[in-house]
């Protein structure tokens, strides 16, 4: 066997066309899960095969790609996916949020607000927001068709009755353009408000579950709640130890055996940008070169 040669961005053009059709349909029906013939990718299901297929289908030679996992450009899987596209598509890559035209993400939305012309591609494990309430696809599809979302409200209500507030910390369900209830992928609910009226196009790819859905730019996205129990963002009570940010989502890092904790920005690009601007935190050390 000789070294295999692959098409631009790995997928063959027929497959990309099929995926682009699904994407167009998804944009036309915001929040609706479009089935698509997901391919076996050279990385495992659960590692972002849906996001990778969406990115592969929309990527052009002039694009600049950023890939983050848990908000960071330097987590192993983000590196692996970025290298995959650098190799198979030869596109420019960046860690800077404003400079990227396509951003593939797992579990976070960047802190820096997105702008028009950008595309945010989410990796989605379970696209169906009703799945844990109703395991059957035949049932959940019917519920979406009839906009029958009572079950979800009952679940949220039961949380309130039991715990005093809604006990969903991530993958917090939203309603898109007043119609479809949608799973935002397992982002922390802190990120939910960023999806609303966002200037960038948001695409969601679930490879194993074979679904694509979308939020077109400037679309209303509302986190489900009740009048007397409005949606609240959760954020750790603290500042980033490196850049001092008091508005970003934080990672908690255990620093010694005594259980000492420190908090740092989960969005590494945001944090580095702030440190470059001269912001400091309690643990700031002279900044090392950001990119090896």
């Amino acid at each position, binding site marked *: 066997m000789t070294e*295999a040669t692959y098409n631009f961005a790995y997928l063959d053009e027929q497959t990309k066309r099929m995926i682009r059709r699904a994407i167009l349909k998804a944009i036309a029906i915001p929040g609706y899960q479009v089935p698509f013939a997901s391919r*076996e990718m050279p990385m495992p299901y659960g590692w972002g095969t849906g996001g990778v297929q969406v990115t592969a289908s929309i990527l052009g030679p002039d694009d600049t790609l950023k890939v983050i996992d848990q908000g960071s450009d330097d987590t192993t899987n983000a590196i692996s996916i970025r290298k995959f596209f650098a190799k198979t598509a030869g596109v420019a890559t960046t860690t800077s949020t404003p400079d990227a035209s396509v951003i593939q993400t797992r579990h976070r939305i960047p802190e820096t607000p997105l702008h028009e012309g950008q595309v945010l591609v989410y990796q989605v494990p379970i696209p169906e927001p009703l799945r844990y309430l109703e395991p059957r696809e035949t049932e959940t599809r019917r519920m979406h068709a009839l906009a029958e979302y009572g079950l979800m409200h009952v679940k949220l209500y039961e949380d309130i009755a039991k715990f005093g507030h809604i006990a969903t910390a991530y993958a917090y369900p939203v309603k898109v353009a007043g119609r479809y209830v949608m799973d935002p992928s397992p982002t922390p609910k802190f990120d939910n408000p960023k999806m609303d009226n966002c200037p960038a196009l948001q695409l969601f790819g679930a490879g194993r579950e074979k679904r694509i859905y979308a939020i077109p730019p400037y679309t209303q996205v509302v986190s489900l709640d009740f009048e007397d129990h409005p949606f609240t963002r959760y954020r750790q009570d603290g500042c980033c130890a490196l850049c001092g940010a008091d508005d970003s989502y934080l990672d908690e890092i255990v620093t010694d055996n005594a259980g000492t904790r420190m908090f740092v920005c989960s969005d590494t690009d945001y944090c580095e940008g702030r440190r470059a601007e001269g912001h400091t935190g309690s643990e700031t050390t002279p900044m090392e070169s950001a990119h090896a």
Partner: protein
Amino acid sequence: MYVAVKGGERAIDNAHRLLADARRGNRDVPELTLDQISEQLALGVDRVMSEGSLYDRELAALAIKQARGDLIEAIFLVRAFRATLPRFGSSEPVDTGAMAVRRRISSTFKDIPGGQILGPTFDYTHRLLDPQLAESGDPAEPATAEASDAPTPRVTDILRQDGLIEESPVAEDDSAVGDLTREPLNFPAGRDLRLQNLARADEGFLLALGYSTQRGYGRNHPFAGEIRFGDVEVFFEAEDAGFAVPLGSVALTECQMVNQFKGSATEAPRFTRGYGLAFGQSERKAMSMALVDRALRAQELGEDVKAPAQDEEFVLSHSDNVQATGFVEHLKLPHYVDFQSELGLLRKLRAEFNQDQPELREAAE
């Protein structure tokens, strides 16, 4: 002090190098060749071809070598390669009745036209570890006889002549056979798609489900009507040539289960079918598949759908080991953002709990 988020790139590269070294093992031991894997670990190769959905012994052997003998990993390698291959059409249905049979048994008739042919099988071996195999040395040459040219009709075809078994459904000429690798699987799925899903399904998963039907979770009274293993020629209708041209032959294992059916108000009692087919010699897979295929026909045959093996969505959604292993193992990926969110929630709930019920907290302490 804070180093956890940097250096991922070099760590990945070094991990890959270490993996390649671990795969090779002790370099004083001769390296495995693909021929050795293909010839001497043939049933592993068969399984990788079956569940990888690609009939290519050499690639399957390569995948097994690369996967260090992890067959699900090997199946994944073959699947990812297969996904990139261009499709130029579907073959004609293979005629397993015309199979060059290497093994063929029926548990429903003592003798059948063409005879029972035991062939290479573990069935009647005593499972005693053979110390001689630890040494090298060739086994005795197999006993041979003149190949018989007697036809070996399928046992179910014999039953069919008397109308004792349901007819096999016949495909409509103009309807293409489904392909779940090209179109997303929707429910309810046609039997063609169900069978395709089962043919790609994890052997262990089907084995457990098939076994569960035998133990009463969706019992369907099976008999192994026939299990045959041998070579079948594959034809392809070439539009340019205007006729079907032979592409070569594939080794297949076919299992036809014969299942009891009590009949209904409109239908006379008769036997029904469960069907299993796999590349190479994969009898456990083919038999399990036939049991599950029959179980999944419960609704069509007016039976109660109560057991897991009869539940189409449950079976078809969880049968694929490449999907399953991916999602189970993805728990290894970082989840600290979500975990952080959960930690925050949990701390809040615990604080509220302690506030509301100080006496409980004291009791617990």
